[in-house]
C-alpha cells in the first residue's frame, strides 16, 4: 500500500512529528517553571528561616540593685531566673549602676531579653531540658514572658550573644564602603566613558582600553580582592579591614560596570543634538557638558545604581582585604576596621550556634530588601526619565 505524501492529520509520521513538537514545547515550559519554582522555594526558605529573628522574647524581672550586683550583675536577678535572662543583659547591670549611682539599693521591674536558647525554644526551634522548659512555659502562661519586635536587631552591632546581635555596625560599614566606592568609581567611570564615547580617536590605544574594560568586567571578584591586598594594603599602606580599602577594591570592580552603562547612555543620545551644538560654535567639551551629559544623566545614574547594588552584595574581595573582623561598635571613619552586611551574614553563617541561623537569614532578608529597593529605584529612574528618540 502506498503511503500518501500529502500530510494529513492521520498520517502516523506527521502525528509523531506533532507529538515531538508538543513534547519539545513542554520541555521548554518545564525548564522555565523549574526556574520559577527554584525562585519561589528560595525566597520561601529564606523568609521562613529568618522572619522569627525580627521578634524576640523578653522577660519581666525585678532587678535588685544590691551591693553585690554592683560588681557581678548576676546578683541583681532573682535566683530562679538566672538561667533564663540573657547574660548580656546581666553583664550590663554593674555599668548601669555606675552610670546612675542613685539606682544603688533600689529595685526596679523591667523587661529584659532572655537567653538565646530560651528564645529559640519559645520559637519552637530548639529543645530545652524538661525542668527548664516547664519553668519557661509556666512563666509564659503567667504573662511574664512576652514577645516584642526586635528593634535591637537594627540598632545594635554584632555580639557573641545571639540574642543581642544586630546588623547596625555592618550597615554603617556598608554605607561607608559604598560611599568610598561611589566617590572613587563614579567620576572616574563617567570621565572614562565620556572619553571613549565622545573624544577618543579610533586608534590602537582606544581599542586596547575597550578590550581591557570588557575583560575587567568579567574578572572574578576574588581577584580584585588579591589586587586590593597586594596594592592598596601592602604597597600603599591603606589600613587593613578599613572601609577605605574595601571601598577602593569594590570601586575598581564597579568601574567597568559604570563605564559600560555610561557609554550605552551616551550612545543613546542622537547625533543631531551634537551636530546642532557644534553648528552653534560649541567646543567639544561644551557639547558634552551642556547637551549630551544632561540628556544621558538618567541612564548614567541607572547604571551607577545597578553597579553599586552589585558592589553592595559582594563578599569575597572584602574577605580578602580583611573586612570580616568582629565589629560590635559601628565604625566612625573610613580608616577604622569595619564590616559590611554580606560579610556579617557570612560571619553569622559560620557560627555553630543554632540561634545564629535565624540571624543569618534575617540579615539576608534585610540585604535583599535593600538590593531590591536599589534595583527598583534604577528601574523607576529608567522608566520615568528614559527618552525614546
Amino acid at each position, binding site marked *: 500500500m502506498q503511503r500518501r505524501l500529502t500530510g494529513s492529520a492521520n498520517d502516523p509520521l506527521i502525528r509523531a512529528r506533532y507529538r515531538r513538537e508538543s513534547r519539545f514545547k513542554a520541555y521548554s515550559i518545564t525548564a522555565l517553571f523549574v*526556574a520559577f519554582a527554584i525562585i519561589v522555594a528560595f525566597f520561601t526558605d529564606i523568609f521562613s528561616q529568618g522572619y522569627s529573628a525580627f521578634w524576640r522574647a523578653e522577660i519581666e524581672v525585678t532587678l535588685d540593685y544590691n551591693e553585690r550586683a554592683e560588681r557581678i550583675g548576676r546578683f541583681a536577678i532573682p535566683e530562679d531566673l538566672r538561667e533564663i535572662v540573657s547574660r548580656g543583659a546581666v553583664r550590663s547591670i554593674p555599668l548601669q549602676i555606675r552610670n546612675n549611682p542613685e539606682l544603688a539599693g533600689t529595685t526596679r521591674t523591667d523587661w529584659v531579653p532572655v537567653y538565646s536558647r530560651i528564645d529559640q525554644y519559645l520559637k519552637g526551634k530548639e529543645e530545652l531540658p524538661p525542668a527548664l522548659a516547664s519553668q519557661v512555659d509556666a512563666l509564659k502562661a503567667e504573662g511574664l514572658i512576652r514577645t516584642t519586635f526586635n528593634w535591637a536587631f537594627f540598632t545594635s552591632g554584632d555580639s557573641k550573644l545571639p540574642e543581642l546581635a544586630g546588623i547596625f555596625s555592618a550597615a554603617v560599614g556598608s554605607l561607608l564602603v559604598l560611599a568610598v566606592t561611589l566617590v572613587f568609581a563614579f567620576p572616574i567611570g563617567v570621565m572614562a566613558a565620556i572619553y571613549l564615547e565622545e573624544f577618543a580617536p579610533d586608534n590602537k590605544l582606544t581599542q586596547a582600553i575597550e578590550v581591557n574594560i570588557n575583560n575587567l568586567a568579567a*574578572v572574578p571578584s576574588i*581577584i580584585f580582592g588579591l589586587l586590593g591586598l597586594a596594592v592598596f594594603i601592602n604597597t600603599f599602606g591603606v589600613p587593613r579591614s578599613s572601609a577605605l580599602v574595601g571601598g577602593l577594591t569594590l570601586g575598581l570592580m564597579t568601574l567597568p560596570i559604570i563605564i559600560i552603562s555610561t557609554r550605552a547612555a551616551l550612545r543613546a543620545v542622537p547625533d543631531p543634538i551634537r551636530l546642532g551644538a557644534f553648528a552653534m560654535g560649541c567646543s567639544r567639551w561644551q557639547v558634552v557638558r551642556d547637551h549630551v551629559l544632561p540628556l544621558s544623566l538618567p541612564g548614567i545614574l541607572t547604571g551607577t545604581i545597578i553597579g553599586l547594588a552589585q558592589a553592595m552584595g559582594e*563578599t569575597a574581595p572584602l*574577605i580578602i582585604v580583611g573586612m570580616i573582623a568582629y565589629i560590635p561598635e559601628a565604625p566612625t571613619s573610613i580608616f577604622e576596621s569595619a564590616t559590611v552586611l554580606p560579610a556579617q551574614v557570612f560571619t553569622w553563617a559560620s557560627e555553630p550556634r543554632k540561634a545564629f541561623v535565624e540571624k543569618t537569614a534575617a540579615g539576608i532578608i534585610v540585604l535583599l530588601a535593600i538590593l531590591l529597593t536599589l534595583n527598583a529605584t534604577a528601574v523607576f529612574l529608567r522608566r520615568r526619565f528614559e527618552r525614546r528618540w
Partner: protein
Amino acid sequence: MGIGLTTLLLLAALTPLGYLAFRLGRGKALQTMASGISMHSRPQQYGWYSVVWMGLPALGVAIAAALLSVFGVIAPSRELVLIVSLVVAVLGLAQGLRAIRPEVRARNALDNVIRWLLLSAALISIITTVSIVLSIVFEAMRFFREVSVWEFVTGTVWSPGDTFLEAAGRGDEVGEGTSFFGSVPLFAGTFMVTAIAMATALPIGLLSAIFMSEYATRAQRGIAKPLLEILAGIPTVVYGFFAAITVTPIIVDIAAFFGLDASYSNILSPGIVMGIMIIPFISSLSDDVINSIPQSLREGAYALGTTHSETIKKVILPAALPGVISAFLLGVSRALGETMIVVMAAGVRPNLTWNPLEDMTTVTVNIVYSLTGDLAFDSPQTLSAFALGLVLFIVTLLLNLVSTYLVRRFKQKYD
C-alpha cells in the same frame, strides 16, 4: 603629618587659590574687553584657563612626590611637598594671569586639558589590569621560588600543613618537607563544581531562552525575563547560605534514602546552587542570540514544512551555536571564580575523587583560607593564594577572550 591630613591641607589651600585665579583671570579678560579689544574666548574661559595654570602643576608636583615615596625612590617630607606645591601653585597663577592675551585660545586649551583628564581616567582601567597582573605575578613568583612549578602543577597532595607554625614565627620547629603544594586536587574540585553547575544551568537556561524567544507571547516574555534576572541580583553569600543550610541536608537525606553516604560538605550541593546562579547568564545571553537570528531563516525552514520544534533544533540552534557556546563559556568563567558558595558549602579537605557526594575543596576556597588567618604575609601558604589566583585569572581571561571573539563572529555574520 599623615598623608590624609596633607592631602586635605593641600586641597584646602588650592580651593581658595582656584577661586582667586578664576576671578582674576575673568577680571583681566573683562577689563581687556571693556577697553574695546576683542578676545578669542569668553571671559569665564580665561578664568578657568588661569585656574588650570594654577592647579595642574601644583597637583602634578604633589602626585609625583607621592608616587616617588610610595615606590621608595626618595621620600621627601610631607611638609616640604606641601610647601613646594603651594609655591608652584602661586607661580602658576602668576604665569597664567600673565599669559591671558586677546590672541590666546583659552577655549581650545581648556578642551585639550579636559581631553587629557578624561584620557587619564580611561587609562585607570588599563592601570588596574596591569597592577592585577603585576601584583599577582610578583607574589606568585615569590611562591614559586620556594615551591617548584612542577610540583604545583602536577602534585596531587595539597597540605600547607605546618607552614602556619612557620608563619607564626616558629619556623625552626618545623621539620623539612612537611608541607606539600600540589594543586591538582584543588583544580579537580573546581572543575567538579563547575561541571555540576553547568549541567544544572545549561539545560534550564537554554530551554528557558528557547521558550522565551520562540514560544512565549510578548506579555509572557515581559514577565519571565525580569523574574529570571532576579536570580542574577542575589548576592553570592545568600546562595552560599541556601546551599549550606537547605540544599545540603536535602541531598544528604536523598542520598541516604538510596542507601548512599553523602558528606555534609558534599560538592554536589554548591554545584547545583551555583548552577541556579548561572541560569540567568545563560538564558539572557542565549535569548539575545536567538532573537538576533534573522526571521528569513525561520521562514525558509517553515516553507520546507518543518514544525516549530524542528526549526528550532535543525536551523535556529545550529545558527545560534557560537552565541550559545559563548554564553556557556562565560558561565564557566563565572563558576570557576565563584567564591562564597563554595566557601560556605563545600569542604576544606583536598580530595581527589569522582564522587560528587564526597567533600572536595576548590581553588577559591583555598585562596580565602590562606589569606584570612593571622599569617605572616610572606609564608608560602599565604603566597600560594597568589599562585592559585594567577592560574584562575589566566583561565578566566582566556575564556572571556574566546567568548567575546565568538560573539563578535556571530554578530558579524547576521548583522
